[in-house]
């Protein structure tokens, strides 16, 4: 699948897929990479080293700093794939240097799929 480059780079890993939007601030713990939002489909799961797949961001605009902090604390996802990346997530992944693309039909990606993400070219491969 081909999408739009938000932040360049390549990443490989297991997909962790959220059908719901993610708000990084208050949604993911900056020190552990674990999803803490109550009732969220990914609650209790860890995004570290995974290819995090979700439709779009939501909630607080501090989310950019949480994405940057996840990276600095070595608990960030290896890559991010969205249906539509909004400014909050875009700012975070650009600063953090996490490969990210959007405009992808994320319904085609299943939780646990092995994913190769080439954000330089805007390409996602399901292995």
């Amino acid at each position: 699948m081909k999408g739009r480059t938000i932040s360049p780079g390549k990443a490989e890993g297991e997909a962790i897929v959220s059908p719901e939007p993610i708000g990084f601030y208050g949604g993911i713990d900056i020190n552990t990479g674990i999803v803490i939002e109550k009732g969220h489909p990914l609650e209790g799961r860890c995004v570290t080293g995974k290819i995090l797949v979700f439709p779009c961001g939501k909630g607080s605009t501090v989310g950019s700093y949480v994405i940057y902090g996840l990276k600095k604390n070595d608990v960030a996802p290896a890559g991010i794939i969205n249906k539509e990346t909004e400014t909050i997530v875009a700012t975070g992944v650009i600063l953090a240097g996490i490969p990210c693309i959007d405009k992808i039909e994320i319904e085609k990606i299943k939780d646990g799929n092995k994913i190769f993400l080439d954000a330089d070219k805007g390409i996602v491969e399901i292995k």
Partner: protein
Amino acid sequence: MERLFRLLVRLGEIYNADSMIPVGSVQVAGVSYKSIGDPGMEFLEDIASKGAKVKVLTYLNPAGMDLENWKKLGFPEDFAKNQLRIINAFKKMGIVVTSTCTPYLAGNLPRFREHIAWSESSAVSFSNSVIGARTNREGGPSALAAAICGVTPNYGLHLWENRQPNVKVKVNFNLNYNSDFGALGWYVGKQVKNKIPYFTGIKDANTDQLKALGAAMAASGAVALYHVEGITPEADNVKKEGLETISVGKKEIKETYDKLNTGKKPDIVIFGCPHASLREISLLADKLEGKHLKRPVWICTSRMVKEAAERMGYNEIIAKAGGSIVADTCMVVSPIEKMGYKTTGVNSGKAANYLPGFCKQEVCFANIDDLVEAQL
């Protein structure tokens, strides 16, 4: 500085901006040490140490504590040390260090159609919707970049064609308390996610109520702009024909109250999310006059509004009853879970949304009268 300008250019490229446009003012989120941690603090200190200065009036979002009264209110010492480092970094950049999520009540008021770069999600919603200024939902660092460069890429909500509603919300319910607006906002935000709702059926709403409505929609969803028939400034001129419609009535509001209530009895009640206006503080002073609170009540507000409340004697009335006016911070970004509180009472849909995840709190979501009653 170059790194920040590159960030703006990259965002402009991604979102097909035709140019950079000057901004009238900026509001920067990502201020509390609790939210941004060491990585954020070091990022900001690095920028400040390189001599970067803001070009336009720039305000800050709430900090993690009352910047003057933190000791008395029981904020931990090591937290305070880091929080003050962050504030000093911002001050070095020339940012006005009054920390508030309601800059428009504290001296940073944009005009209709003015381009701005604000980041606090409820302030973005208020300035776009109630004032009719134009801003995207900026991430903390992209707002800071706009402040330092004086410009923002021209895309998204800066353009009139993108300010048109794409869902209609029919309200069949008489909204009474400000918490009713919070519940409505929380419900609608969940439904519409990042769309632009056009509300009908809201007969009247003051700015406090619109602040509560917008804040809740920005927290449960990603709503950056909404229109209310007969009330908000762009409502008459936007295209609202043929939109998908959702209805919200008594049943949905009641269900939202039930859903947001995860606790039984509050250890602490906190008002002022977003920061309380003078009108809200005056109402609380009325309700608390001559009463004796058994458990704490905080009212969070900006330093400016606290000064005005002080002059009116409201602070004294509230203090006598056993309550506290807390400036510069709010319950969501302060470390209340480390201060011994497990259940927090709020009348804010936004606070009810964030407290369980971010402050590990059980929540009592109720109207102002029930919350005051619970603490007596």
